């Protein structure tokens, strides 16, 4: 439970309105022709604060006595997530002969 306020108001209400506004911006950003790069950066730029707002305020990862350790718990899989995204998401099959030069012994001598 929250023991703090945002601008003197109930944090849940403030968080709720913040999320609604951010989502509205998100949808609007797609509706307006801005080009892929800009749209994408807006989408990512909004997803991150939304993510943090829900986790910190609704899920009580901010402001409670146990927030710190539970944040650590929530962040624990980060390493494994990164490994998975890099190893599975960002690789693609290839022939062994395409081994990049920096993996070859000759490159370093």
């Amino acid at each position, binding site marked *: *439970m929250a023991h703090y306020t945002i601008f003197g108001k109930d944090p849940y209400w403030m968080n709720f309105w913040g999320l609604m506004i951010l989502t509205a911006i998100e949808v609007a950003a797609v509706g307006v022709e801005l080009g892929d790069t800009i749209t994408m950066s807006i989408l990512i730029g909004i997803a991150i604060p939304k993510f943090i707002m829900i986790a910190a305020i609704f899920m009580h990862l901010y402001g*409670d*006595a*146990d927030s*710190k*350790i539970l944040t*650590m718990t929530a962040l624990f*899989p980060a*390493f*494994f997530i990164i*490994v*998975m995204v890099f*190893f*599975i998401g960002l*690789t*693609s*099959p*290839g*022939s*062994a*002969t*395409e*081994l*990049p030069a920096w*993996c070859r012994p000759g490159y370093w001598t």
Partner: protein
Amino acid sequence: MKQNTLLRTLVLLTVLGLALSMAPQADSLPNGIIGQSEKGCTCHGAIPDSGVAPSIEGLPATFNASTTYTLTISFTGGPSGQSGDPHNLGGFNLAVSSGILEAVDDTVKIDGDQATHNGIDDDIDGNGIQDSIEAGGAAIISGNDYTSWLVNWTSPSSGSSTFTLAVNSVNGDGQASANDAWNLMAITVAGPSSGAAAEELQSADPFVVLVTLIIVSGILLAAVILYTFYRVSPDGFNWESFAPWIIEWLTSTDHKKVGTLYFLAGFFFLGVGGIMAMLIRIQLAVPGNDFLTQDQYNMFFTMHGTTMIFLAAMPLINGFANWLIPLQIGAHDLALPRINAMSFWLQPFAALLIFTGVFSGQAADVGWTGYAPYIVSETAHTGTTLWAAGQIMLVASSTLTGINFLATICGMRAPGMGWMQMPLFTWSIFIANLMLFLSIPAWGVGLIQVYLDRTIGTAFYHVASGGDPLLWSHLFWYFGHPEVYVVIVPAFGVISEVLATSARRSVFGYRSMVYAMAGIGVVAFIVYGHHMFTSGMSPTLRFVTMLTTMLVAVPTGIKIFNWLKTMHKGSLVYRTHTLWALGFLVTFTLGGISGMFFPSLAMDTHLHETYFVVAHFHYVFVGGTVFGVFSAVYYWFPKMSGRMMDEKWGLLHFLTGFISFNGIFWPMHKLGVLGMARRHHTWFITTDDYANIPAEMASWNLFITVSAFLFFFSNFILVGNMIKTVVSGKKAPADPWGGWSFEWMCASPPPTPSFDPHNPPVLRDANEHIASEPSRLGQWFERLMMPEDDSEVNH
């Protein structure tokens, strides 16, 4: 009240029985035990279409002995062919149980006791090239283009003959499509009665052998359960006292009871997996053997791997974890007892799904790795679909187990037991569950993708639509590599406990043991690519995982040397569990060393998928995990049953088991290097034409098979020992071996709840200074982890 419960139990059992009676429906799937060739072709839908009517003309009502009949096979119904293009109209497969089939013209080919149409994929002249390829696009005769065919059948001298005919009716576009259909008919024709004709001696169908043995094992298990009940209540051997007793076991959430259930399931499937291993070894005993058909062999090695890892090793480990974790950390039970019961009960039902295929004669045949796209290629093969379904349930079970043990070990340790005062077995279960818990979702997702690919037809592994077979390998091995550590790390924990206790020393380098296990836990996630060095994975990743895989040797080495040093200046008390622990050191070291050959790329291109690999992973799975489990059984059985095991039988078990184990797997190293490939239905020795596969292979394989049978039967000594112990063993004291951890504090067997939740035991530490003076790093960590003010947490 009580009658009410009884009534409801009966209702429940009826419902469950009804549910299970659905299982025999597996037999109504296209093919029973006979094999899939009856469908003629696997690409025409999954179930027979009654719109297609097959017929056989020219059969007499009763046949005369050794007479040739010309049969006309035809069908009506099904999709209409493309107008003006008599191409690919249909096909058939005729199987006869006796008599000889002969082709009349080029449209039909004969294969043993089966006749089928000559497809465009065929090779009439037998030169190994498909006729269509040879013809280079020119028209060739294809039995596919007809709707009726002729065959000659020469009747046998006596008996009756069953004709099983499958026909395909297709629309002729050359592609599998929705309105392609097929149907099946069977007709039996009696022959001349010849009273004294000798029954032909039939060789046993290995599948029937397997199914029979499974059923027999199940009945034996039930008998053991009944006998146990008789032992606990000799006066009330009736339903009124049996029902509450069995309901107590079916519904219990007590960690000790659930642990015992895990043992029952684990040992049962260890036996079933063992039976399959024996059948596999019979097949491989001599070159060119055909004891098992190819299909059966493929099912057997698939089910052997799946059963041994997921239905034997994991439940046995979970059995020990269930029993011992609360006892070792001084907790009264696990954190979430009902969830714990749930993770157990998912397993037998998952096993039922996985084995449905065995009973319908069509088990999964994809290997325990289930590589795509083969796993999604034959969607009509229900055994594989249910294999995936059962594994999905096992994933759910492991996830729940993970939550439970992580929460228990994190949150329910007795006062005075910091992280660095936990018994090493508890540490090993903690690390193993953390690995399992974080890796298994990847496989779960992969399985769901496969299950959906096979059922509703998503296209994750549909290569023609751009699906990537390697995605499955990635998802599988992202889980699969941590998984192999999940089954070995608990054995590390067991050996640490057993060796230290037996040597009357505290384990050498407790902290480095913990760090080594944690190191293994982290490294497990970044090495999995070494299973895919030759699989077409991204070359950069192959290189990276080669480097990381080499790293695994370091923490494993630390552990082995620490164990050895633990014995130094100790007083090694030789008991059966000590022997198994020492045996573990030998076999695990050998398995570890052979493991070092694989990350070396230029060697792996030769060794991958050979018997060298088979030898390696059996050395670590059996020589590591199973020996660890045996050691743990002898070590903790007195605690669980309250009775001491027979040491003489134990010694006999160890000697026979250890020797025959090495007899099985040591020669396999050589076979692999010489050119025997894994998962091959059979192997051929040849004359000196092929220098690579020398004649001595035959001797070695026979030797392996004999050793395998010895190993299999040696384990009955353990079973016998356990039964003997329960029946007439000597009463066990609370601490028979002189261990230090909490489980030795309570009586044997422990009471329920194991410890009083309101008055838990307090761990004292012989090294007081460590607890009172955390290092700078420790202080920082403590500040980070602890709430500033404990009371505030309660809001």
